[in-house]
């Protein structure tokens, strides 16, 4: 059974200029212990999808569809039930470790509060658990560092702390939003190794635009473009047999593949192009691409693509 099953999810933001269709009809499922990569350019709706799952968007946002987590629809349950799920069942690791930690609170307290909010441990027990968790994310001398403030930690260390907070209550699913953003190569590979270790028994939705990181960590990868999924397959399939022109373009833009950029800009989520959303930037665009919006089709077992020419 799938741990998380998203069907027909639409997240729209009403704005003065029109409706922003940040997430448009997405179907996605995550199995127990699986790592699923969600990849796309900046502004294609990746983070919004993560926030939609945790129901942390502004109240004026319209969300339609279903998000079934272990049999219950997250879009229907009460706020109190949702609060219990946040952190304890589904945890999110944010993309800016430097600004995601409260500057006036000790690091240990910030890890301990996640535990205390859900498990009702005493201050002392929670602190001990925080030390344990800090140790498990490879922070040296954790018993001393729990008493330090975020500014005493380096960028990579702060990201470890964010991971520690995410792991504090042993969630079944971790949503990691660009966990390697802004880290240098050495630290990045350390964080990737750490994420690999800690998610051995945990499912993870990895939001990133770094294909290298996704390749190292993910079992399956979903490519997202302008609010919708365009290709969805196992990591191996995506790298060896990419079918969608956008996926190919994305792979071609990797430094090891010659740094060839995809021409053009990703479209505004208010005025989406007619037909295939990728057609203005696509080399293979034909007349049909401008008129008809392609459906997601299953080419091979478990390999879905949204393109007429695949």
């Amino acid at each position, binding site marked *: 059974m799938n741990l998380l099953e998203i069907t027909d999810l639409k997240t729209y933001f009403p704005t003065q200029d029109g409706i922003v269709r940040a997430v448009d009809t997405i179907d996605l499922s995550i199995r127990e212990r699986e790592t699923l990569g969600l990849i796309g350019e900046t502004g294609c709706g990746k983070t919004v999808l993560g926030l939609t799952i945790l129901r942390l968007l502004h109240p004026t946002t319209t969300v339609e569809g279903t998000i079934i987590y272990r049999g219950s629809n997250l879009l229907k349950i009460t706020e109190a039930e949702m609060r219990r799920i946040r*952190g304890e069942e589904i945890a999110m690791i944010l993309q800016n470790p430097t600004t995601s930690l409260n500057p006036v609170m000790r690091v240990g307290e910030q890890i301990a509060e996640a535990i205390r909010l859900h498990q009702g441990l005493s201050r002392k027990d929670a602190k001990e658990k925080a030390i344990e968790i800090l140790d498990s994310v490879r922070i040296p001398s954790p018993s001393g560092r729990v008493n330090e403030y975020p500014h005493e930690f380096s960028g990579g260390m702060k990201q470890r702390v964010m991971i520690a907070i995410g792991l504090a209550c042993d969630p079944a699913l971790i949503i990691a939003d660009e966990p390697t953003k802004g880290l240098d190569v050495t630290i990045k590979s350390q964080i990737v190794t750490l994420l690999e270790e800690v998610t051995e028994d945990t499912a993870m939705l990895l939001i990133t635009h770094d294909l290298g990181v996704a390749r190292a960590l993910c079992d399956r990868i979903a490519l997202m473009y302008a609010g919708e999924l365009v290709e969805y397959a196992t990591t191996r399939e995506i790298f060896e047999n990419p079918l969608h022109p956008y996926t190919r373009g994305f792979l071609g833009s990797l430094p090891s593949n010659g740094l060839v950029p995809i021409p053009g800009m990703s479209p505004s989520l208010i005025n989406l192009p007619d037909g295939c959303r990728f057609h203005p930037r696509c080399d293979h665009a034909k007349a049909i691409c401008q008129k008809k919006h392609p459906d997601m089709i299953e080419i091979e077992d478990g390999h879905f693509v949204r393109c007429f020419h695949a």
Partner: protein
Amino acid sequence: MIEGRTILGSIGLAILVVFAIVAILAPHIAPYDPHQMYRPLEHPSSRHLLGTDNIGNDILSELIYGTRVSLFIAFVVSVISMIVGTSLGLIAGYFDKLGFLIMRVVDVFLTIPRLPLIIVIASFIRPSVWNLIAIFLIFGWLMTARIIRSEVLTLRRRYYIDATKMIGGSDCYILWRHILPNVVPLVVVQFIMEATHVILAESGLSFLGLGDPIARSWGMVLHDAFECPIIYVSDIWMWWMLPPGLCIVFTVLGLTFVGYALEETLDPKLKSQAYGREL
């Protein structure tokens, strides 16, 4: 530069501590009961260090007990204003609809000129310490609420607030554990400003004769002195009128110095500017 601020702050704190001790230990320090009558209008002597007033009360004892009244009113008003203003500011900044309501109430109150209205109300109700406190409280919380709200408006957009929501923190929890500690510096500054304001306003009201005639504050002693025409024609103003005036000045000065020193601790940007000037 930095040294200067620290020294001023220490001086201010010392002044305030001295006044606070005087206020707390008034019955033990004061040589006489302030209502006890002796020979009126006596000049300073070893028996009455600041002489006696027109009805024969020992002026020094009056001043010492007056410290109690002045500081008590300022303290109570500032503490309650701080609690009410901070709570309402937090709520107003965090919850949009409630915030709109609270801020419109604040707006209405702020359009009313503060001191004139206080004078009007004070002249209609029976003058007593608690009534004075009540009058000051009507206006005391307004600025605190508004300033705290504007700070909360920016704080609630920080990523660590989102991060707390993501681990399942409720709104109340976030306000208490994450937003409140971040506004404490502002709260302290507002507390000092409010105390300064109340000391001055209370002295002003009492000077106009609207203070509590039983529990006489510094302003009330001044009022009595000015009621008595003899101060204009003799040296008696030196020990009757000057000391309460100086008490008021020094208290306000002490508060200002402490506020000035805290300003830098609470806003490190001032520190870097100071460094810049030295270089």
